[in-house]
């Protein structure tokens, strides 16, 4: 296969995953959340149990007028949704689906790249918040910036622990070095990474930046139509990305009960959906954290645990 065809195939596959996985997760969220609240959820769109609800939502968003507030900083305001989506798309490029060649772009410093790119999220958030010329947007954006900067630290520390244990920054290398007993001694890192990841994608119970009972819709207040839909899509891609990273770093990626070489992609996808389910479950079960509780959890809870895990990992690796 010529290089360009292979490149096109890989980019195309990532793009398809980028468009379908979030929709599946979104639909699952609709139905799981509904049934956890003793409701049925969408039942009409598409005929069978509302399977086409998100497509219908997409069509609706595309039809809506695309408003830009008069006081807004137009170019920044219009660019922010794209900046929100881009990092997740780039992260999907380096996440290995299966062993060997089943990764769009194998990268030796994959983990470093992923963490660096995920940090871009705060830029889109501040862009949206500042350019909206709206006090709710601004307050939401500042809350979001404080939250993202704070939770970046435990996220990186937890990821560093697993990288240290595996002795590599390559995501493929980390999975290859992974052994089932890592589940036990990397458990604190797993918990810290998962919670910090939830906060990074601003999912409930960490959705203080868009707390709708106090800030209308935070930094998304002024967005309508397709741009708003892009932000929503970014949220669902975020779920997929955080779930995939948790799976790759802590749950053994493509390693399953049998046939890792042939069915690796299936184990990866199953684990990603399982972690996504937990993310949805946590959203249904827990109320939103207050701003001070949020920061307290980060600095007094997660950071010390992550540092302790780092010391433990260093000790085991050196010993």
């Amino acid at each position, binding site marked *: 296969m010529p290089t360009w065809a292979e490149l096109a195939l890989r980019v195309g596959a990532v793009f398809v995953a980028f468009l379908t996985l979030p929709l599946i997760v979104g639909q699952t969220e609709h139905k799981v959340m509904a*049934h956890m609240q*003793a*409701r*049925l959820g969408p039942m009409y769109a598409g005929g069978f149990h509302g399977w086409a609800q998100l497509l219908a939502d997409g069509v609706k968003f595309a039809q809506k007028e695309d408003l830009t507030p008069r006081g807004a900083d137009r170019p920044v305001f219009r660019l922010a949704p794209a900046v929100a989506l881009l990092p997740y798309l780039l992260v999907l490029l380096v996440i290995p689906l299966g062993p060997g060649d089943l990764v769009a772009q194998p990268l030796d410093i994959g983990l470093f790249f992923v963490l660096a790119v995920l940090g871009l999220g705060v830029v889109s958030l501040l862009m949206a918040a500042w350019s909206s010329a709206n006090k709710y947007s601004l307050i939401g954006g500042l809350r979001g910036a404080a939250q993202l900067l704070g939770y970046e630290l435990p996220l990186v520390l937890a990821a560093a622990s697993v990288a240290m244990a595996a002795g590599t920054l390559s995501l493929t290398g980390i999975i290859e070095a992974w052994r089932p007993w890592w589940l036990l001694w990397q458990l604190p890192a797993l918990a810290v990474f998962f919670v910090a990841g939830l906060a990074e994608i601003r999912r409930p119970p960490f959705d203080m930046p868009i707390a709708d009972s106090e800030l209308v819709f935070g930094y998304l207040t002024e967005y309508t139509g397709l741009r708003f839909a892009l932000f929503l899509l970014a949220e669902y891609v975020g779920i997929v990305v955080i779930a995939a990273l948790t799976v790759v770093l802590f749950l053994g990626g493509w390693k399953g009960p049998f046939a890792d070489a042939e069915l690796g992609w299936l184990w990866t996808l199953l684990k990603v959906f399982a972690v996504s389910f937990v993310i949805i479950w946590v959203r249904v*079960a*827990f109320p939103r954290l207050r701003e001070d509780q949020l920061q307290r959890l980060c600095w007094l809870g997660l950071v010390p645990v992550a540092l302790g895990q780092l010391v433990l990992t260093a000790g085991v690796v050196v010993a």
Partner: protein
Amino acid sequence: MGTFPGSGLAKGLAITAKTLTRRADTQQYPDVAPQLPPRSRGVIALREENCTVCMLCARECPDWCIYIDSHKEEVVTPGAARTRQRNVLDRFAIDFSLCMYCAICIEVCPFDALYWTPEFEYAEHDLRDLLHERDRLGEWMATVPPPPAHDPNGEPAKEEQAAARRATQDLRSPGGTDG
């Protein structure tokens, strides 16, 4: 039971997971007709033949939402000493935009001319269209459910008790009281 940190979080997860496994409570209303109990207060139906225009319902109605018009007719019975008068109903209307579903009219009607029916799908786009005349009220009689069966463990009805008492007295009186 000791509370260790995080037990509340686990409880929240457990409750939502338990609800997930149960059937949803949602009723698919327009697709599936709701199962309403027979005594549901949906709308008031009128059995016109039973109405004697005694006006009790209209007078007792707390917000005066029942409108009754009538006239008197002479009934000439051949061989009778004098003619009798009879009330004839000209209009019977209930304004459901005023009605507060208190059921006083139904309680007070001595001739069982008014009934509850569970029928509830009579919404209108205009408030004024909720004033329903006797033909519409009469149509709803078809939807009145039969009265619920008597509770087999309950006390028998007053009428049944009286009849039974009379029957036992009739049996006893010929021979029993002599001694």
